[in-house]
Each structure stands twice: as C-alpha cells, then as structure tokens.
C-alpha cells in the first residue's frame, strides 16, 4: 500500500523500549519509550472492600497525567483535557473489555479484594501518547507481583505474607496504534508531535495479536475512507504481535511462580 506510510516494525523503524521494574517501591512498574514519547506506569495494590452487587470483583483504577517536563504546552495543575481523555480511554479498556479479569483480584468475596492503582506519567510528549500509555499499562500489569493475602479470621482484617509471587493473568494484550491522516489520503502510523499537528485527523485502532478489535476511536477531523480500514487494521495487528512478543521477553518468569488463577 503506497498510501499508508510507516508501520511499527518496518519503514518508520520506531524503537519501542520497555523497562520493567523501574520503580522498586511499586508492586509493578514499567517505563516505555515509543520513539521519543516516554511514559512510566507504577502500580500499587491496596486492600479494598468489594462493592454491593460486585462482591467478587477487585478494582483496577488507571490515572494518566502529563508532567510539565514533557512539553512546553503542559502547565502544572489539575489534569488537562488531554490527560483526562487518555485516563478515560484506559478505564474503558479495562472495564468494558475482558482482557483482564477483575474477579482474579478478589481475595475473599464480599470482604476483601485488591484495588490496583495504576499511575501513568508522561515524561516526554512526542505524539502517540495513547500508544505508549497502553503499552506501559500492559507491561506493568504483566510484571506486577503481589504478596499472598488472606483475611485474618480473628481480626477480620487483611494480612499479607512476605512473598511476592502472585501475578495477574492477562487474557489478551490490546495494543493501541495511532494513525494520522494527512490530506485525507496519506496515513501515518505513530505520528510524532509535529506530524500530529500537521495531520487533519487522527484515529486510534486498538487490536490484539490474535486479530480481535478492542477499539476504533476517531474524533472529528477529515473523513476516513472506510475502504482503507482493512490495511490500517493489518498494520495495527502486526504491531500488536511485535509489542506482545516484546512484553513477553521482558517479563519472562520461571515456572515456580504461581499465578492468581491457579492459587
């Protein structure tokens, strides 16, 4: 396809760097660089009481913020509109799709569950923020290790052991790919900040490596010719495959570690 310029793996040669365990005080963390865009994600697990009708579910609460170091346009203060949109995107991805089971976070139904607070901070904003955020969240969730927990029968409070061997099972790895539409005709995968500002429109395809579609989000701008969608989907799926294998390589574990599912 001559019209679609650039894919994750080939022509644009954008490097993706994943560094897991960057934050030693967090239960799970990952630093991700997609090209120049840098996002760090830290996950802390805290005890929570499962709510009313969802007594066997835990919580995963994402929060994305843009640090003033990332760009001259970002001012200190409450999260900007851009940050809130990405926070909501991640929250929808977790709640409305089944790539992760919140039931796995339940320790004892109705009494105790894990609440995972995922804080993402953008350190360098050079376009395609959603892509980097999703990869950072997936890597941090994959590398997360929680201690074993149970409810103490005498006190009714939660208590943890000193081990760190409980991990969360991910059913799928949905990866977001941003495309910029230039002149309504040319598609640019992974646009940088400068490219995004020049493109008349952009859209985000969230796909997993097995071809499932988790999102197709386009917000106004120039029209997207629907006959080009299959080629964009192919690029997005190829990228999802490459990112998944990268995450697997980074977070490879020995067999002795138990997952939450089996315990």
């Amino acid at each position, binding site marked *: 396809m001559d019209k679609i310029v650039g894919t994750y793996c080939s022509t644009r040669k954008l490097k993706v760097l994943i560094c897991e365990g960057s934050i030693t005080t967090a239960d799970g963390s990952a630093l991700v660089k997609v090209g120049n865009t840098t996002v760090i994600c830290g996950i802390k697990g805290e005890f929570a009481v499962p709510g009313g009708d969802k007594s066997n579910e835990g919580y995963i609460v994402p929060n994305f913020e843009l640090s003033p170091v990332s760009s001259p346009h970002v001012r200190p203060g409450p999260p900007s509109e851009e940050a809130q949109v990405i926070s909501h995107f991640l929250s929808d991805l977790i709640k409305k799709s089944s790539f992760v089971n919140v039931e796995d976070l339940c320790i004892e139904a109705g009494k105790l569950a894990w609440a995972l607070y995922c804080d993402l901070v953008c350190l360098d904003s050079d376009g395609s923020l959603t892509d980097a955020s999703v990869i950072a969240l997936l890597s941090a969730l994959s590398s997360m290790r929680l201690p074993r927990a149970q409810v103490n029968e005498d006190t009714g409070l939660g208590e943890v052991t000193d081990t760190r061997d409980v991990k969360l099972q991910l059913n799928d790895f949905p990866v977001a790919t941003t495309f910029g539409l230039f002149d309504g005709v040319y598609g640019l995968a992974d646009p940088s900040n400068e490219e995004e500002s020049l493109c008349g429109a952009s859209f985000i395809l969230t796909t997993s490596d097995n071809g499932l*579609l988790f999102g197709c989000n*386009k*917000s106004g701008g120039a029209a997207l010719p629907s006959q080009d969608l299959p080629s964009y989907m192919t690029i997005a799926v190829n990228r999802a495959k490459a990112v998944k294998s990268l995450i697997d390589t980074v977070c490879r574990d020995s067999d002795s570690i138990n997952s939450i599912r089996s315990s």
Partner: protein
Amino acid sequence: MSLRSLSCEQSLLARCDGSARFKHGETSVVAAVYGPGDVKPNKEIINKATIEVTFKPKTGLPGCAETALEKILQDTCEAVILTSLHPRSSISIILQVEHDDGSLLPCCINACCVALMDTGVPMRGFVCAVACAVQQSGEEIIDPTLEQEQSAAAVLTFGFSNESEIITSHMIGQIAQEKFYSALSFASSAAKTVSDFYRSSAEKKLSKELHVKERVNEVKS
C-alpha cells in the same frame, strides 16, 4: 433492523441563540448554542472560531468520562462548522441529558447538529450519528437501549458526513474484525434515516415560518 422513533424540537429555549431537544426513543438530550460571540483571550484563535462544549450528565458531578465526551463532540462539531468564517469568536454548545436509555453519544451528536442548524451557524454539512451494539451472540442491534448496551460485547458509535464517510467513531468492548465491518455497514445505512429526519424536521420548521409570513402579508394587504 431499524432505529427507535426519532423526535426533535427546535427553538425551545428563549435565552440562547439556538436550541434543540433530540430524542432516540426514550433517550433525550437538550442542546443549547450561544454564538458566534465573545471568547476569552486565552482561548482565542486568530483565524478560526473556538468551539466550546459543556456536557452536563443527568446526575452527579462531571468527571473524566464527561470530559472525554466533550472532546469527541467538540472535534465532531469542528469538522462540520465553517470556523474560518468567525475568527476570534466562540461558539458554545451546552448539552443537558434529560434521560439516558442507551445511544447517548449519537443522541448528543445529533442534538448538537440540529441546535447548530437552529442557530444558523454556517456548516459544510451534518454529522448523522448512530450506535450499534454487538451482542455476545454476534447479533447486531442498531440504536440499542441501555439494557442492550450493558449486556453487549461491544458498542460502536459512528458519525457519518453527508457523503457517508466516517467523521467520528467510538468503540468500547471487544469483537472480531468481521463483526466491526458488518456493524459499520448497518450503521451507515441507518444513518441515512437520521439524515432524512434532519431534512424533514428542517422542512417542517421552515414551512411554519413561511406560513406565518404569508398570514402577515395577508393581513397587511
């Protein structure tokens, strides 16, 4: 496979420059437009109008979800409004949800378009929005109710231009790619119903105005 009954009421509010109430079945949204008018200096754009959207949910305080919805509506309206005709001005759109029974985002987009038409803001066309829910069984439902949305595997919203091109799209959930294309084609044909509805409601509104003018002329002569 069809939409629920659409209804729309225009010029219902007295203070604003234009307003509309749009209903998809029980889902009802009121949109009010003020503009083109003054803009705050920090939001001024020298060659275009600034579009500001405020979304008020039926209950509760606005949060991230409402901000994300405002961004989608702002970008959608910017795609069709001829902003270069009103530089250094603002066009403010305020939406209030009266009842949410599913398909809220398409109802909001449609309410915005009709309210903008009522105001007389120059536009290059309309955005006709429709939602499609794909159930766990694989069945596609156009214009789903709240119950259908909550039990669905995925809910897709599309906003089409006059030429049936995708201006806006929003999806939550997960489906196979083939389901996406079939949902897109169902939504595209359903959007034509919305487009015809815009046209007929514009004709009704203008014919009422024409009748009033004719009566006035009769009285004079």
